[in-house]
């Protein structure tokens, strides 16, 4: 069969909402794009553990501490689901980690911002996880089977992350003047980076059309961003806080909120590695990997020893 025929069969399957599975024929570009997209997502989950782990030892109550540990553990799990799904495309785990550690692969820029106060744990749960969920729910219907299945699992677990975040902010919003200030300050700092999580505007997002045709992206960046803004603009009222955007205004005609211009210079600056924490995050990740080497070696040695014992018995 010619490549054109194979490509036609492949696209027909996708158009008919039939999932592509690991051993099915797929165009190289589809495979490559998926490896990049899925591994970037996996890296984001793993690097995303760092800003929150920063507050585990300083959580204000045992309940909050247990929750935060569970959340960070979930992120590790999400990273693993996605790495495993990426490996079904023929990419090796070691190779993927290597790309992260050398800076060749990207992860979500949001994790290059610092977590300065406890309220940041709330703002991350509400806004960052909220934006992530907005991006991820449509991917539960992605055309690549292992990816879609991983996303279903992730989305189920992600909901608690967002709710616990909002609960943190809600508690602070009912607290002392200082706690309310802390709450507003966290929202002020996390709002714009969260809005940027949806990526460049549609007219500056050249791969969107192809990704949509392949159904590995189901809504455009701006569509999802608008949905996010509309939802948050209402939710923030429950907190009695404000969103730091003077142009945020309900547009009766559009039936959507209008919002202010995004600082794309800041966005690209962080993507290029010049955000407040890029170097720190990468260094922490590389250090964790290197300092964990003895554990991996010990586990291998232990497995070998056990195998030997079994042979002797």
């Amino acid at each position, binding site marked *: 069969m010619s490549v054109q025929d194979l490509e036609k069969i492949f696209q027909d399957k996708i158009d008919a909402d039939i999932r592509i599975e690991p051993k099915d024929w797929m165009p190289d570009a589809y495979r490559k794009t998926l490896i990049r997209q899925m591994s970037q997502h996996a890296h984001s989950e793993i690097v995303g553990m760092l800003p929150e782990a920063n507050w585990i030892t300083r959580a204000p109550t045992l309940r909050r501490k247990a929750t935060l540990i569970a959340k960070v*553990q*979930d992120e590790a799990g999400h990273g*693993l689901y996605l790495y495993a799904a990426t490996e*079904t495309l023929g990419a090796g785990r070691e190779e993927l980690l290597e790309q992260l550690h050398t800076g060749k692969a990207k992860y979500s820029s949001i994790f290059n911002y610092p977590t300065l106060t406890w309220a940041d744990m709330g703002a991350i749960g509400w806004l960052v996880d909220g934006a992530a969920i907005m991006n991820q729910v449509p991917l539960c219907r992605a055309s690549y089977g292992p990816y879609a299945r991983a996303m279903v*699992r992730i989305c189920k677990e992600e909901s608690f992350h967002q709710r616990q975040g909002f609960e943190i902010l809600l508690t602070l919003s009912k607290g002392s003047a200082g706690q309310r200030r802390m709450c507003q300050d966290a929202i002020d700092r996390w709002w714009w980076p969260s809005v940027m999580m949806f990526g460049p505007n549609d007219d500056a997002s050249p791969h969107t059309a192809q990704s949509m045709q392949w159904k590995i992206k189901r809504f455009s960046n701006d569509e999802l961003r608008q949905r996010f803004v509309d939802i948050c603009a209402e939710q923030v009222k429950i907190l009695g806080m404000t969103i730091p955007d003077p142009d945020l205004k309900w547009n009766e005609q559009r039936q959507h909120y209008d919002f202010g211009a995004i600082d794309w210079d800041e966005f690209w600056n962080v993507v290029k590695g010049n955000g407040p924490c890029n170097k720190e995050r990468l260094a922490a990740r590389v250090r964790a990997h290197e300092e964990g080497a003895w554990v*991996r070696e010990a*586990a291998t040695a232990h497995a070998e020893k056990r*195998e030997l014992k079994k042979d002797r018995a």
Partner: protein
Amino acid sequence: MAENQWPLWEVFIRSKQGLDHKHAGSLHAADAQMAIENARDVYTRRMEGVSIWVVESKYVHASSPDDATSFYEPANDKVYRHPTFYDLPDELKHM
């Protein structure tokens, strides 16, 4: 030995007694015991399982998607294997 030499394992989970083990995903581990423990941490953090099977991925043999059409062809023209194939009067009860 480096991490990339840890083999890949397929994980199957029984969500409750009486149901089948179902494929949940895969992971790397040095041996079967570690694979089971990792599977517990990765795939059953919310009581999703009561039993775990792990199988080293290299031992899984699969049918080829390229041959799917001809491979499953023998069943294709045998509608008489389904109960609805048989034409029976409506008066006939309990069948």
